[in-house]
C-alpha cells in the first residue's frame, strides 16, 4: 500500500507540474504527462495485458487502460491522467476500507483463546486449545482467557464474561462450578478439569455461529445477488448501443466521444458497492449483537427480527425467574422467625420445590431429631410434630379439613398456611419472582411499535393473570399444555400482517416445538445451555428479557443501513449512467459511481458495528 501511495504522490506532482508550466519547446509538457501516466497507471496497464492473455477481456483494468489511452490519443492528456489518478486513489481507498472492515471483523472474533496451560504430571505445558483432551487438568492464571469449558477443582476467582454475555459485571466462580471458555479470569488462579473438547466448547460454538451467520442470507442480500446478475449484462449491452448507435443516427455525434461514453458505462457496470457493503452491514449487525450478548444465527433472522409485530412470551423462566422463593412471612400470634422455623422443620422431609424454598429461606441447619411423626397429606400439605408442637402446614383445603379459620384473600403465588396445635399461626407466601427488567422490556417493546405482546403459560389463571397485569402484557393464555402453546402460536400467526413476523421467547428447554413454529424463536439464558443454542434462531446469552428490545433495535438499524446503501448505490449508478448517456458528465463521474460509491457504502455499513448504545 505504501508503494502505491508513493506512486500516486509522485504521479500527481508531475501531473500538476505539467499542467502549470509553459515550457519551450512544447514537447517537454507531453513527456512530463507521459511519465506521470506511466507512474500512476503502469500497474493498471500491466494487469490489463496480463488478463487479456488469461482470456479475461472486460475487466476494470482493461476499461481504465482503454479509456485513458483513448483520451490521450485524442490529445486529452490531462483528462486521461486525471481519470487514471482518480481511479487509483479510489482503489486505494477501497482496499483500505475493505482491509479495515476485515480487521474490525477479526477484532470482533477476538475471543478465541490462544493457548491452554495443561498439567502433565508435575509440569505445566502450554498447548493449543485444540490439543487438550477431555478430563485434562488446566490452569487458568489471572488475566488469561479460559480456553475450554471446564469444572473448577481448585481455587476461586472473579471472571469477566463480557465477551460472551455483554455483561460487564464480573462473576464469582468457586470449586464445583463450571467455567465457560471465552471468559477472562480476573484475579485468582483456577484449576479446572476439562469437560468439553475445544470444538464443543462455548467459545468455538459462538465463533462458529457468528462466522456462519452471514451464510444464511437475508432478503436484501438475495436481492443484491439477483440485481448483480442482471445489472452488469444490461449495462454492458447499453454501452455497446451507446458506442455505435448515436454516431449512426445523429450527425454531430462522433465515434470517439460515443465510445468514450460507452467506456464510462462499463466503469459503472460493477455492482461492487452493493456486493461488498450489504453483507458487511449484516455482518456488522450480527457481530455487534454478539458483543451485547445476543447471538443471531443468520442474516435472515436479523431481518425477521426487525419486522417483528407480535412477541409471544413463555412465562416461567422467561418473564419470571423460574425459581420459587419465599416472598412474605405473615405470622399470627407468634414471631416471624418462629413461624418460618416451624414450617421449615415441618416440611423438612419433603423435597418438593416449595419445601426447598422454605428451607432456603430459613437458612439454618435443620436438626432432624426435633421432628417426629412427619406425614405428607397428598394434595393438602404436611403434618408433623416439632418439639412437641403439632404442626399443620399446607393449602387452604388443609385448614378447612381441620376446621381452622385462616386468611382467605387471594394472593399471587402459593400460600402455605400454618397451624400450631390447631391454632392458626399465619402463612408463608411463595412465588416465582418476576425478573427485574421484565416490565421494562414489555414497555420498551411497546415503545418500539410492537403491536401485540402475549404471554403463554401452563400456570393457573390467578397467578398468571396477575403477572400479566403487573407487566402490562396485552394478552395472556393460561393453563396450557405444551401442545396447546403451538396451537395458540399458530392462531396468533394468522393475526399478523403479511410482512410482519411473530417472535416466540422461551427458555429453550421444553419449548422447542413452539420455538420452531414461530417466525423467530428466541431462547433466553443461553450461556452454558447447548439446548437453547440449538433450538433457537436468536439466543439471548443472559437472563434479561430487555435484551430482546436491544436485539430488535440492532436489527432495525442494520436493516435501515442496508436499505440506505441499496438506494444510494443504485441511485448514484443510474444517475451517472443517465448523465453520461446525455453527455453531461465524463469519466470522472463514472469513477465516482464505481469506487466512490463503494467507499461511501462501506463507510456507512461500518455504522452497523456500533451498537453499544442501542
Amino acid at each position, binding site marked *: 500500500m505504501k508503494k502505491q501511495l508513493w506512486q500516486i504522490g509522485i504521479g500527481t506532482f508531475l501531473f500538476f507540474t505539467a499542467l502549470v508550466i509553459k515550457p519551450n519547446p512544447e514537447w517537454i509538457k507531453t513527456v512530463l504527462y507521459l511519465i506521470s501516466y506511466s507512474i500512476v497507471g503502469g500497474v493498471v496497464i500491466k494487469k490489463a495485458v*496480463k*488478463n487479456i492473455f*488469461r482470456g479475461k477481456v472486460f475487466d476494470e483494468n482493461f476499461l481504465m487502460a482503454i479509456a485513458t489511452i483513448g483520451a490521450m490519443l485524442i490529445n486529452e492528456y490531462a483528462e486521461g491522467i486525471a481519470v487514471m489518478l482518480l481511479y487509483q486513489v479510489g482503489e486505494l481507498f477501497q*482496499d483500505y476500507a*475493505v482491509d479495515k*472492515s*476485515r480487521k474490525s*471483523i477479526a477484532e470482533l472474533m477476538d475471543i478465541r483463546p490462544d493457548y491452554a496451560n495443561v498439567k502433565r504430571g508435575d509440569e505445566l505445558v502450554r498447548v493449543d486449545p485444540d490439543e487438550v483432551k477431555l478430563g485434562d487438568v488446566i490452569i487458568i492464571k489471572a488475566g488469561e482467557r479460559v480456553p475450554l469449558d471446564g469444572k473448577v477443582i481448585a481455587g476461586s476467582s472473579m471472571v469477566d464474561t463480557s465477551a460472551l454475555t455483554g455483561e460487564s459485571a464480573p462473576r464469582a466462580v468457586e470449586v464445583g462450578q463450571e467455567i465457560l471458555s471465552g471468559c477472562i479470569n480476573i484475579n485468582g488462579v483456577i484449576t479446572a478439569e476439562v469437560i468439553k473438547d475445544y470444538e464443543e466448547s462455548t467459545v468455538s460454538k459462538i465463533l462458529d455461529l457468528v*462466522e*456462519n451467520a*452471514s*451464510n444464511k442470507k437475508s432478503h436484501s442480500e438475495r436481492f443484491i*445477488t439477483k440485481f*448483480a446478475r442482471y445489472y452488469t449484462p444490461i449495462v454492458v449491452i447499453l454501452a455497446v448501443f451507446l458506442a455505435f448507435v448515436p454516431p449512426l443516427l445523429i450527425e454531430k455525434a462522433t465515434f470517439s466521444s460515443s465510445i468514450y461514453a460507452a467506456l464510462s458505462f462499463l466503469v459503472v457496470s*460493477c*455492482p*461492487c458497492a452493493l*456486493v*461488498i457493503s450489504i*453483507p*458487511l452491514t449484516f*455482518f456488522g449487525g450480527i457481530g455487534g449483537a454478539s458483543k451485547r450478548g445476543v447471538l443471531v444465527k443468520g442474516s435472515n433472522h436479523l431481518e425477521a427480527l426487525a419486522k417483528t409485530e407480535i412477541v409471544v412470551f413463555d412465562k416461567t423462566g422467561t418473564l419470571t425467574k423460574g425459581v420459587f422463593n419465599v416472598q412474605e412471612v405473615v405470622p399470627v400470634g407468634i414471631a416471624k422467625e418462629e413461624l418460618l422455623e416451624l414450617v421449615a422443620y415441618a416440611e423438612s422431609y419433603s423435597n418438593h420445590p416449595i419445601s426447598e424454598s422454605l428451607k432456603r429461606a430459613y437458612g439454618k441447619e435443620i436438626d432432624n431429631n426435633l421432628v417426629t411423626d412427619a406425614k405428607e397429606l397428598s394434595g393438602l400439605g404436611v403434618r408433623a410434630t416439632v418439639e412437641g408442637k403439632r404442626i399443620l402446614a399446607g393449602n387452604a383445603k388443609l385448614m378447612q379439613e381441620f376446621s381452622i379459620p385462616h386468611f382467605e384473600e387471594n394472593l399471587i403465588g402459593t400460600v402455605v398456611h400454618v397451624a400450631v396445635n390447631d391454632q392458626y399461626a399465619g402463612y408463608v407466601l411463595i412465588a416465582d419472582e418476576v425478573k427485574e427488567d421484565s416490565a421494562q422490556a414489555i414497555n420498551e417493546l411497546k415503545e418500539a411499535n410492537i403491536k401485540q405482546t402475549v404471554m403463554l403459560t401452563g400456570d393457573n389463571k390467578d397467578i398468571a393473570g396477575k403477572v400479566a397485569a403487573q407487566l402490562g402484557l396485552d394478552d395472556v393464555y393460561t393453563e396450557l399444555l405444551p401442545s396447546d402453546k403451538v396451537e395458540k402460536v399458530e392462531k396468533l400467526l394468522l393475526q399478523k400482517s403479511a410482512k410482519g413476523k411473530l417472535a416466540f421467547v422461551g427458555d429453550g428447554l421444553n419449548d422447542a416445538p413452539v420455538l420452531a413454529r414461530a417466525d423467530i424463536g428466541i431462547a433466553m439464558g443461553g450461556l452454558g445451555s447447548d439446548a437453547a443454542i440449538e433450538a433457537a434462531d436468536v439466543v439471548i446469552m443472559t437472563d434479561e428479557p430487555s435484551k430482546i428490545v436491544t436485539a430488535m433495535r440492532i436489527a432495525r438499524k442494520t436493516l435501515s443501513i442496508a436499505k440506505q446503501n441499496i438506494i444510494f448505490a443504485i441511485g448514484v449508478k443510474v444517475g451517472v449512467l443517465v448523465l453520461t448517456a446525455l453527455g453531461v458528465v465524463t469519466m470522472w463521474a463514472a469513477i465516482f459511481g464505481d469506487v466512490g460509491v463503494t467507499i461511501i457504502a462501506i463507510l456507512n455499513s461500518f455504522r452497523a458495528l456500533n451498537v453499544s448504545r442501542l
Partner: protein
Amino acid sequence: MKRKFILEGLGCANCAAKMEEAINKLDGVKEATVNFLTQKLVIVGEEERMPAIVQAAEKIVKNIEPDTTMKRA
C-alpha cells in the same frame, strides 16, 4: 460432507459472488458459500465426489481471480 477453505488474496467482492455461483453449479455440490469478508469458502457436497469438486473449485477460483489461492482451513 463439509469442507472449509481460506481464499487468500480475495480482493473483489463481485468475483467472490461469481465464484460462489459457479461452484454451486458444480455436480455434487449441495451448497457452497464464499464469504468475501472472512475470505472463507465452505463447500457442502457428496463425499465421494469431494476430490473432484475441490479440484474444479480451485480452477474456478484461479480463473476468476488469478491472484487468489485456495487453502485448506
